[in-house]
């Protein structure tokens, strides 16, 4: 009870500190000081607080807090457009993706209907500007994160499959030359409302121990009329479905670059691989044996930065882990409140409650680190450090949350009637895969 009172009082002083009235009266700094001091003091006077708290609440409750848009506040709310996108995709995710996730996991592919519905949503058109068939003047990394997060909340495997084409489109938008955008990006967007849509994907991972994206063995050798590509890629989402690939390969002078590779070229062989998780993503292994690429296959010109490209790939995987972790959290909260043992819901047991609380704390930290990196990327600030921190945290906690999700369901966690075992298997991918881009 005391906790609630203190909570109310804190919210009252914070509301006061944030109210427009304060701005008008030029009280911003003093008010924030009050909020800070009273927050600190609040915990010290917990015991005698009750009566005073009510007074404080009456006194401090500002008449109007809805239009609060103080420019000096640390604002983490989404823009109207981001909120609309998130709302629409959240619904799509819970009404379309989630119900078909189990089947897609069994079939090791998402149904055509899902691809078609996702195409109707125009995901791949989000980042592209109007001249290439899209609608965005200022594509945002954060919005792409929100998109990935919403889809992964439905199912990470299906999200990964759907986001492959989106990622390739994002990479083309960010790095591609005008000619490359016209010949590769525009056709994807134009095909979205056609029965035979175009798909694309990004291939980074290689089958070697301790793989990191900066130690590539796939390589190109310049020839008279372009490049010769050799090497082996693995864990390429929708590798078999994709009409073209963006392949990470190293040039003779040791520079990692991306190459646009038409998947119908001679010398390419694609083998589906069977994995523990992300089954709906149709992961494939791809061999490149002396594949002759045209001169304009090299993505972008001097503007291409491989490190930034990898940072954005990492953020995409962070977003997937957040979406899936959110799904796990929501599921276990419901489950543990409903499942009874010893005559009461198991959520009344501290060992259960602590575990769920930890998921909540970890999920929030994953959110904040990822959003901060994305927001720095959108502002054009360096974000390598932030993206790296986010990736390390998300890889680590994704697996932990996956394991704890299964644990909280007890024996039910082990059987396929509940989706948590699938989420656990999917979450293992976060730390090791790269082929996406926000």
């Amino acid at each position, binding site marked *: 009870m005391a906790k609630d009172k203190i909570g109310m009082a804190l919210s009252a002083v914070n509301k006061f500190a944030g109210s427009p009235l304060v701005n008008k009266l030029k009280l911003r700094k003093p008010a924030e000081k009050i909020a800070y001091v009273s927050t600190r003091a609040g915990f010290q006077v917990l015991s005698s607080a009750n009566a005073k708290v009510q007074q404080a609440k009456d006194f401090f409750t500002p008449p109007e807090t*809805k*239009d609060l848009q103080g420019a000096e506040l640390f604002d983490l709310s989404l823009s*109207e*457009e981001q*909120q*609309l*996108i998130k*709302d*629409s*995709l959240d*619904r*799509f995710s819970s009404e379309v993706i989630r119900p078909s996730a189990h089947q897609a996991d069994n079939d090791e592919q998402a149904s055509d209907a899902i691809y078609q*519905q996702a195409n*109707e*949503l*125009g*995901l791949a*058109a*989000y980042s592209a500007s109007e001249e290439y068939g*899209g*609608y*965005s003047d200022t594509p945002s990394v954060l919005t792409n994160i929100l*998109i990935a997060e919403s889809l992964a909340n439905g199912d990470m495997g299906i999200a990964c499959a759907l986001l492959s084409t989106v990622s390739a489109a994002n990479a083309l938008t960010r790095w591609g030359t005008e000619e490359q955008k016209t010949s590769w990006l525009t056709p994807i967007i134009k095909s979205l409302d056609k029965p035979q849509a175009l798909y694309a994907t990004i291939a980074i991972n290689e089958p070697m121990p301790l793989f990191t994206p900066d130690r590539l063995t796939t390589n190109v050798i310049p020839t008279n009329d372009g490049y010769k590509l050799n090497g082996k890629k693995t864990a390429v989402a929708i590798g078999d479905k994709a009409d073209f690939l963006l392949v990470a390969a190293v040039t003779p002078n040791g520079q990692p670059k991306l190459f646009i590779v038409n998947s119908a070229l001679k010398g390419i062989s694609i083998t589906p691989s069977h994995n523990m998780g992300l089954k709906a993503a149709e992961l494939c292994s791809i061999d490149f044996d002396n594949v002759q690429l045209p001169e304009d296959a090299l993505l972008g010109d001097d503007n291409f930065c491989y490190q930034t490209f990898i940072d954005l790939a990492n953020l995409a995987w962070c977003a997937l882990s957040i979406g899936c972790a959110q799904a796990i959290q929501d599921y276990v909260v419901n489950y543990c409140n409903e499942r009874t043992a010893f005559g009461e819901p198991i959520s009344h047991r501290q060992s259960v409650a602590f575990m769920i609380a930890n998921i909540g704390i970890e999920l929030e930290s994953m959110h904040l680190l990822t959003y901060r990196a994305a927001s720095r990327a959108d502002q054009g600030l360096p974000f390598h450090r932030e993206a790296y921190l986010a990736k390390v945290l998300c890889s680590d906690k994704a697996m932990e949350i996956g394991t704890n999700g299964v644990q909280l369901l007890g024996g039910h966690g082990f059987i396929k009637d509940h989706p948590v075992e699938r989420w656990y298997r999917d979450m293992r991918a976060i730390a090791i895969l790269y082929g996406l881009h926000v």
Partner: protein
Amino acid sequence: MKVLVAVKRVIDYNVKARVKPDNTGVDLTNVKMAMNPFCEIAVEEAVRLKEKGVASEIVVVSIGPKVAQEQIRTSLALGADRGILIETDEEVQSLDAAKLLKAVFEKEQPNLVILGKQSIDSDNNQTGQMLAALTGMPQGTFASEVAVEGDKVNVTREIDGGLVTVALNTPAVITTDLRLNEPRYASLPNIMKAKKKPLELTSPADLGVELKPSLTTLKVEEPATRQAGIKVADVAELVDKLKNEAKVI
């Protein structure tokens, strides 16, 4: 044909509503708000009429606080052409809503007004009928099918005994039932286009309507929690309990 659609901002249907501690209403602090599902069906129907070439313009109107703009933007993202928000922080009851909509109807002169049959917050199921009565328009309520033929509109209504189809002269009021259609998801390109569509702000005073609540809420309570059931040994005991305890036979 011009279509006017009314939409309402309500508590999201996925949210478990909580009653305020002082029993004066439902607690809306930090609760996710969304468009009333029946209103969404109304918007979808208008958009389908436009796609069929029947409707030429869709105007969406909402009554509520400034944030209700979100629901209008959602409608614009689903395919409506422009929006009107009648801004008020006061409580708006069915009759007041109908009067405000009548004022908008007179200004906009649409051929069809589509509303949800009821909003999921107060479940009144009144506004559409009241609007029809105030404007003298014919009404087709609980629509499960809408077919426009020239200046007539055939509305199939869901009633207790089955279906009844009424033919209405336009302008007419239609209220939507659950099975009329399945609303689409707003696509990303349409969401971005919605930003550029016009949204007009007005107020009850501008429309010459004074809000006069005709009902007073006395008390709001949670539904009683369900009691655990019991097992009976045999039919005789069951009949006995039904007769003497439940007193239903």
